[in-house]
C-alpha cells in the first residue's frame, strides 16, 4: 500500500506542528500539559454530571454511621489512644478512595468499546500522559470524597486536625492513593479487556486489599500470616498517613516519609507499566 504524498502541500494548507523549541524542559512541559488536558476532560465530564459524586458518598456514610457506631461500643480494639470512630475515619477515607479508583478500569473498557481510547491513541499524546491524566482525574474525584468524609466526621463529633499542612498532606495522599490504585485498575482492564471479567476481578481485588490493611483495625490483632500481607499492602501505608494527618492526636506507625515513598514509588511504577499496556487495549 502506497500512501506517499507529493512534496508539494495543497493550497490553503496550514502546518500545525509546533516548531521545536530549544529548551531542554520542552518535552517535560509538553508531557505535563497533555496530562492536565486529560484531567481537564474528566473534570468537564464530572461538571456536566456530578450525580456520581453524591451516590459515591453513600457507602462511606453507611460504614461510618452503621459499622462505626456499633464498633465504637467494642472496647477490645487497640487504637493507640484514639476513640474507635476517630481511629476508623482515616480508614474509611482510604476505603472510599480505593473503591473509586479500583473500578476505574470499567470506564477504560467502556471507552475502548466506544472507540474513544483509539481516538486518543491516534492523537500525538504521550501514552504515559494519557495514563497519568486518567490517574490524576481519579485523584480529583477522590478529593470530593475526602470533603464528604470530613463533613461526616464533623457530624459524628470526630476531632479533626485542621492544620493547613495536615490538610495538604491528606489531599496529596488522596490523590496519590487514587492515582496508584486507578492505574492498577487500568492495567487489569488492559489485561482482561471485557467488562464482565473485570467486574469479577474487581470484587476479588477490593475486599482483600481492604480487609488485609489497617483501615478498620490495627495490624497487631491480625494473625501472623495476614500481618505479613498487610505490610506488603500499599493501602496500609495510605491509611497510616491519613491516621497521622486527619484526626487530632493521630500518629503514624511507619513514619510519613515511608508512607509517601511507598505511594509515590507504586504510582510511578504502575504509570510506567500502564503506559506500556494501554495501547494494547485498542487492538
Amino acid at each position, binding site marked *: *500500500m502506497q500512501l506517499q*504524498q507529493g512534496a508539494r502541500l495543497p493550497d490553503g*494548507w496550514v502546518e*500545525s506542528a509546533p516548531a521545536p523549541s530549544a529548551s531542554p524542559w520542552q518535552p517535560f512541559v509538553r508531557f505535563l500539559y497533555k496530562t492536565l488536558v486529560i484531567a481537564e476532560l474528566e473534570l468537564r465530564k464530572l461538571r*456536566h454530571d456530578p450525580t456520581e459524586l453524591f451516590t459515591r458518598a453513600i457507602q462511606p456514610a453507611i460504614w461510618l454511621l452503621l459499622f462505626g457506631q456499633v464498633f465504637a461500643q467494642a472496647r477490645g480494639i487497640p487504637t493507640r489512644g484514639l476513640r474507635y470512630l476517630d481511629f476508623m475515619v482515616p480508614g474509611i477515607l482510604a476505603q472510599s478512595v480505593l473503591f473509586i479508583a479500583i473500578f476505574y478500569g470499567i470506564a477504560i473498557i467502556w471507552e475502548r468499546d466506544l472507540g474513544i481510547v*483509539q*481516538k486518543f491513541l*491516534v492523537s500525538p499524546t504521550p501514552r504515559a500522559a494519557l495514563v497519568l491524566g486518567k490517574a490524576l482525574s481519579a485523584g480529583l474525584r477522590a478529593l470530593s470524597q475526602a470533603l464528604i468524609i470530613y463533613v461526616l466526621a464533623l457530624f459524628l463529633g470526630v476531632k479533626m486536625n485542621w492544620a493547613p499542612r495536615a490538610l495538604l498532606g491528606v489531599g496529596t495522599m488522596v490523590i496519590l492513593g487514587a492515582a496508584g490504585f486507578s492505574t492498577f485498575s487500568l492495567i487489569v482492564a488492559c489485561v482482561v479487556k471485557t467488562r464482565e471479567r473485570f467486574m469479577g476481578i474487581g470484587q476479588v481485588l477490593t475486599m482483600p486489599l481492604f480487609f488485609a490493611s489497617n483501615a478498620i483495625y490495627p495490624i497487631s490483632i491480625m494473625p501472623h500470616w495476614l500481618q505479613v500481607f498487610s505490610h506488603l499492602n500499599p493501602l496500609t501505608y495510605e491509611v497510616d498517613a491519613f491516621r497521622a494527618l486527619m484526626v487530632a492526636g493521630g500518629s503514624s506507625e511507619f513514619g510519613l516519609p515511608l508512607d509517601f515513598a511507598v505511594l509515590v514509588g507504586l504510582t510511578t511504577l504502575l504509570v510506567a507499566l500502564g503506559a506500556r499496556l494501554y495501547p494494547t487495549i485498542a*487492538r
Partner: protein
Amino acid sequence: MFGLLGPNGAGKTTLIKMLTTLLPPTRGTASIGGLDILRQPGEVRRIIGYVPQLISADGTLTGRENLLIFSKLHDIPREERKPRIDDALSFMGLVDSADQVVREYSGGMIRRLEIAQSMLHRPRVLFLDEPTVGLDPVARNSVWEHIAKLQSEFGTTIFFTTHVMEEADALCQRVGIMSSGKMAALGSPAELKAVLGKDDATLEDVFIHFSGDILDTGGGFRATATGRETARRLG
C-alpha cells in the same frame, strides 16, 4: 479519495488500525506522507486524523468541549483554538448545537462532530472507518457532502471503508477490494469495471468478483493494477 471495500472480516479495520499506528503490523511496514508507521509513529500521528467505526465523541460533553480537548491534544496554539473550533463548527453545520451535550445529538450530527474533531489539526490523511454505517440516507448524504467539501478545501486525502458500493463508486478516485486479509484489487472504479469485460458492470459486480476466491481470479489482475497505479498519488 480512496475507498477500501471488502466483506466483513476481510481485514479493513485491521489495515486502518495498522496505518493509524494502533496496531503494529506482524511484518512489513507502510509510510504515510513519507513517514514510516513503525519508526516514526509519533510524527505519523501529527499528520493523520482518525474516526473509528463506533461513535467515539464524548456524550457527556458539549460539541464545543469535545473539539476543545482535541485541539489541545493536537498542540494547536492557544490563539488559534477558538477560530479553528468556530470554523469547524460552522463548516460541519453544528453552530446551533455547539453548546449542547453530545448525548442529545442525532447520529449524523455526532459523525460530523467526530470528523470536525479529527480535522482540527488539518491532517494530510483522514481515516474514516465506515463513516456512514447506521445513518439514515439524509444524514448519510450530509456527512458525505461535508467530507467532500473538506477534501476540496484542504486537499486532505480521505481513506475510508464502506459496504455501500454506490458511495465508493461515486466518490472515489481509487478503490481497493480486500479479501481474507489481502488486497485483491486496486484501481479506479472504471478500471476495475473494465476488467470484468461486461458493458454494464457495476462496482458491486466487481466486488463480488474479487472478494470471492482471489487465488483463482484476482492474482493476475492484482499485479497489473498495482503496478500501474503505484506512481499515482492516493486520493
